[in-house]
């Protein structure tokens, strides 16, 4: 167990921030103040955090339509994010992105993506760029179980193997793509990692609801990739706590399924339990984090609400760096 208490607190704080961010959005969206599609990451926090906390700012990630968790874990400003999702002028992307396209290149977060599978080849490009720089940096693509059926994802894996790019494919198997189960839509039900292996890369498997399982598996993987051994993949078994997007009645869920995954598959609960057993962090410290994070989210929502909408006169700005 190589993590010290600061690191553990940091991990917990990040996961908790994601959780409260998403739970708060779940409530706020009902007010009608937030438009568009919002896909919440709650339930999968251990994946984003277990992975991103091992990356530097110079490592790049590309995310999915369900991107808030990856953003927060990679270091995006939470207040800027909230403003963005509210479509405000002070948002991380000036209100042009919204939930689905949120990005911050300064922290190596190359964007959430509205196109399922759109990000995977970009991670390979980031990896090829990193290799030229020669500092051992990597490009990471987050993909869902649904995204692993998109041609771009396959092409990206093959390209990474062929070019020996330091690219990492993270498959978050939350067992649903929209209203369809992975048991139906993924030919090799519940084994996405083997697809990556069939392209000729090593793959890891871990419990994506367990921070430590994710962290440890990814640590091994990252060493492998940073060591110049080409790409690698990891499949995480995880759960999504809310609907596909906000508004989804989730009639595809089994009876009691939501209660069960909340009770048995909560990465925050598991984390608390583990550190209590090991005595590495006090629960008082964790409680303090909870309080801090709650205040942060309150503040973010308040600031987002108070911020102005973008000036419509700027609608066509920033299409080009320069056009004439």
């Amino acid at each position: 167990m190589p993590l010290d208490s600061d690191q553990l607190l940091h991990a917990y704080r990040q996961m908790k921030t994601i959780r409260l961010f998403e739970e708060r959005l779940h409530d706020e969206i009902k007010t009608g103040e937030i438009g568009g599609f919002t896909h919440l990451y709650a339930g999968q926090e251990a994946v984003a955090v277990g992975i991103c906390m091992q990356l530097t700012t110079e490592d790049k990630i590309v995310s999915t339509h369900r991107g808030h968790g990856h953003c927060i874990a990679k270091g995006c400003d939470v207040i800027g994010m909230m403003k963005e999702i509210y479509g405000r002028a002070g948002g991380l992307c000036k209100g042009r992105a919204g939930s689905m396209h949120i990005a911050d290149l300064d922290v190596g977060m190359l964007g959430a993506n509205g196109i399922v599978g759109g990000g995977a080849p970009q991670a390979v490009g980031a990896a090829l760029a990193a290799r030229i720089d020669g500092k051992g940096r990597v490009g990471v693509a987050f993909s869902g179980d649904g995204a692993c059926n998109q041609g771009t994802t396959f092409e990206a894996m093959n390209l990474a193997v062929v070019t020996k790019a330091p690219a990492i494919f993270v498959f978050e198997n939350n067992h649903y793509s929209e209203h369809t189960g992975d048991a139906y839509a993924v030919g090799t039900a519940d084994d996405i990692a083997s697809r990556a292996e069939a392209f000729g890369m090593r793959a890891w498997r871990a419990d994506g609801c367990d921070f430590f399982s994710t962290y440890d598996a990814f640590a091994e993987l990252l060493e492998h990739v940073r060591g110049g051994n080409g790409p690698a993949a990891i499949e995480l078994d995880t759960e999504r706590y809310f609907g596909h997007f906000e508004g989804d009645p989730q009639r595809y869920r089994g009876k009691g399924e939501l209660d069960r995954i909340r009770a048995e598959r909560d990465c925050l609960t598991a984390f608390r339990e583990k550190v209590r057993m090991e005595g590495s962090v006090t629960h008082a410290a964790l409680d303090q984090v909870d309080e801090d994070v709650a205040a942060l989210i309150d503040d973010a929502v308040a600031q987002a609400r108070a911020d102005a909408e973008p000036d419509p006169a700027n609608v066509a700005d920033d299409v080009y760096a320069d056009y004439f």
Partner: protein
Amino acid sequence: MAIMNIREAIVATLHAEMERDPDILLLGEDVVGGNGTAGGPEAIGGIWGTSPGLWAKFGPERVIDTPISESAIIGAAAGAALSGKRPVAELMFADFVGVSLDQIWNQMAKFRYMFGGKARCPAVVRLVYGAGMQTAAQHSQSVYAMLTAMPGLKVVLPTTPADAKGLLTEALRGDDPVMFFEHKTLYGVKGEVPDGDHRQRFGEARVVREGGDATIVACGRMVNFSEKAADKLAVDGIGVDLLDLRTTSPLDEDAILESVEQTGRLIVVDESPPRCSLAADIAAMVTERAFTSLKAPPAMVTAPHSPVPFARSLERAWVPSPQKIEDAVRRVLAFPGRSGQ
């Protein structure tokens, strides 16, 4: 005549046509929904609710949930069509032509021509399009101009429930690939729908109103916005001819030209950026063919040359508004005159 909305008209037409013709099949993401889940098939259908009950009635061989693989969806439709079936393929968002364009453009659109006229490729691709729900840059686009440009495709955009039925029926009975555009903000629009068999020929614009002072040509949601503008103009005694294109390929050139020859003034409204747009297409066609009738340069009311933004204020500024249409009509009527009249 029954009163229903566009969504209901589409669902009813799919049910009726699949009943009538055993060669019709439907494929897409979540067109059944619930497959592979505890809830089971049809626990909940696609996010637009345009295919309920089809799986239960027509079974898994004709109503097929697919993985997220749009190229394969369209490609499978193309192959099924070449094999004698009439597939309906659904793109949850029209923007996903980005990941499936080859199968639309280089495959289904070209088979008949390339194969010397021997092939039939009666595939219908349903595309959910348009801005207005803050779905941002990758889920809000109106890609009809791109597809209108492609020889071999027919492009259809119903704006009323009656046309949704009539045009979809026509699409399902023709022998060419049809791009059937459904505007995401119009599903709830209600209206009368003819009972029984109802086909609406392609290439026949709908005359929404006749006014005589200027001609507004529009399609999709822009028809509704143009009506609002027309109402405002009517208050000032300005009467417009308003044409709903219904199909952009084929294009009802005659109806447009006939009206412009009377009014001498053309305003084309197009929910897309300006370059190589349908607005430009129609403005140029009219100028070429009715130059001497024109009393003013055709006006093009389009979105700006930018992606679709997320924020409400920005999206509203992006979409051509009734106000902008009204302004354009007044500007055209005031020509020659100072700019901004």
